[in-house]
């Protein structure tokens, strides 16, 4: 396809995949965080975590809606969220990891929000109007999510022996899932070359520096990378993901089109 201004356009497939990747990350993390509703250590934190979940859900809705529009096969945001099967989801492994204890949730949030903040800061200048719009709105949300996670990381890491132990365990456990955030394949590379997407590999050093500063201030140790979990962007997921999908999709599948 050639656009009016003679620039070669990325294929609709690629744009759709890119929107799905960003949208699925937001959707699945929102679903995970919403599992904290009524279970957080304090009611204030209950509200904070579900607020973050709602921010991410809002981003997911716009991105999935856009993916559906670009795909042009008549699927809307609900079809994409509730009627795809596991192999069709292209979120990273990090966001689907179970909540674990509060430390795990905070560390997962720290890792993801630092990545998403860097991503949105770049995506604001995308030539794609919708992606730029999602990023412009999302960058403020991501900045807050990152601040929230950072504040807790500092306090729990440099807190009691028990909170430090749990935080370090969470950092070590989740570290192998961070590399995938920065993987770029043809989709990102082609779209990035056209000023539409952000090549996530360009965000890696900024992320590593920010994370290492926070972890060090929190008296936590930055782990060595021994192995990395990958495959989410191709639809290959970890065991926990199937259970998440079953819960997320049950209602819509049992009562198609249910509204409340």
């Amino acid at each position, binding site marked *: 396809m050639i656009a009016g201004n003679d620039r070669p356009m990325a294929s609709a497939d690629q744009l759709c995949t890119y929107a799905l990747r960003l949208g699925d990350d937001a959707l699945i993390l929102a679903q995970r965080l919403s599992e904290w509703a009524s279970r957080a*250590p*304090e009611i*204030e*934190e209950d*509200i*904070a975590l579900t*607020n973050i979940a709602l921010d991410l859900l809002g981003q997911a809705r716009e991105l999935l809606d856009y993916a559906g529009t670009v795909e042009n096969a008549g699927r809307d945001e609900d079809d994409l969220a509730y009627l795809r099967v596991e192999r069709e989801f292209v979120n990273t492994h990090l966001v689907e990891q179970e909540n674990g204890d509060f430390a795990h949730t905070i560390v997962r949030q720290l890792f993801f929000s630092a990545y998403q903040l860097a991503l949105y800061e770049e995506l604001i200048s995308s030539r794609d109007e919708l992606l730029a719009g999602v990023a412009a709105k999302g960058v403020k949300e991501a900045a807050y999510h990152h*601040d*929230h996670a950072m*504040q807790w990381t500092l*306090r729990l890491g440099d807190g009691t022996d028990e909170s430090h132990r749990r935080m370090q365990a969470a950092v070590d456990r989740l570290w192998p899932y961070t590399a995938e955030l920065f993987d770029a394949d043809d989709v990102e590379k082609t779209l990035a070359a056209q000023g539409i997407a952000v090549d996530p590999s360009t965000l890696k050093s900024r992320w590593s520096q920010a994370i290492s500063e926070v972890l060090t201030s929190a008296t936590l140790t930055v782990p060595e990378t021994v192995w990395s979990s990958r495959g989410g962007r191709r639809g290959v997921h970890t065991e926990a993901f199937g259970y998440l999908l079953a819960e997320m999709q049950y209602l819509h599948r049992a009562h198609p089109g249910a509204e409340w």
Partner: protein
Amino acid sequence: MSTTPLWEVFVRSRRGLSHVHVGSLHAADAEMALRNARDVYTRRGEGVSIWVAPSSEIWASTPDEKDPFFDPNADKVYRHPTFYTLPEEVRQM
């Protein structure tokens, strides 16, 4: 769980208005209290500025002291600006 201190939260809804007490919450320290206050009390665009203060630092008059504190003022009408005639042009004062 009540391991963290209680904080009183004051929110200014617009520039020009003063901070108004909106409630209280638990948080480990002042920075976290500010963030919690943001999430609990300003989610629907209620504020442009937040103050938090440790509840333990607030000294309050007690209901027992109500009479000596407030009653003596009630019968001193000369303290109230009720003896001025307001020009009609001044609608509200």
